[in-house]
């Protein structure tokens, strides 16, 4: 029985899970406040656009979005199996591709900012 290459997918999952545990609630609070009419100062177009124009910020955003999508994708894959969906290879391909696509899109948009 050979050693598995699972660490390729598990490492980012663990990193993403930790990141989302620390960051996601506060992030959701920001856009929730915006939705309730109390747009936080940093979410005005001028400030946010200026903020996202910095390369370190772009890199950080790619990392946050990328790891969030990846850890969600990995968990979704496990959940599908837990619910009885046997086609693990197919599910894995779909969810990880989705996460990578979302991350790629984020990179694309950040390049335009």
């Amino acid at each position, binding site marked *: 029985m050979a050693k598995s290459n699972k660490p390729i997918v598990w490492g980012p999952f663990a990193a993403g899970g930790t990141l989302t*545990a620390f960051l996601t609630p506060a992030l*959701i609070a*920001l856009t929730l406040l915006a939705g309730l009419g109390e747009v936080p100062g940093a979410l005005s177009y001028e400030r946010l656009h200026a903020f996202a124009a910095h390369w370190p910020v772009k890199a950080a955003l790619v990392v946050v979005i990328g790891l969030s999508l990846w850890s*969600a994708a990995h968990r*979704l894959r496990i959940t599908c199996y*837990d619910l009885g969906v046997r086609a693990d290879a197919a599910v894995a391909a779909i969810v990880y591709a989705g996460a990578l696509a979302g991350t790629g899109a984020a990179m694309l948009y950040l390049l335009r900012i």
Partner: protein
Amino acid sequence: MSRRPYERPITSEWIFRHPRYVRYMVREFSCLFIGGYALLMVVGLERLSQGPAAWESFLQALQAPASIGFHIVALAFSLYHSVTWFNLTPKALPVQVGEEFLPDGVIAGAHYAAWVGLSIGLLWMAGVF
């Protein structure tokens, strides 16, 4: 004497056999909302890259009842993810100081403290207060 072992079939009813399995599934389902929110961030970046008008309409769309509903549910699930993650961290990363291991509460507590600090810092920098 002949052997004929009987294998009981596995169905999805295991999920409801005990509250701990239901709690596990709830924790796992948080991925839909955390992933969903990350996708919302991607859409937000798209709008931001398209100029002030597109960004304004994104902020407007956030006010829709469906968006508020999603945010509240997503917040609940993401809080559940955070709490379960921090509570499980001491099991995965035990720290031995001298002879004894640090109590779980210390390691989890440190994570909670960092989380609160980070969240308040983020919200303050964003101009919420």
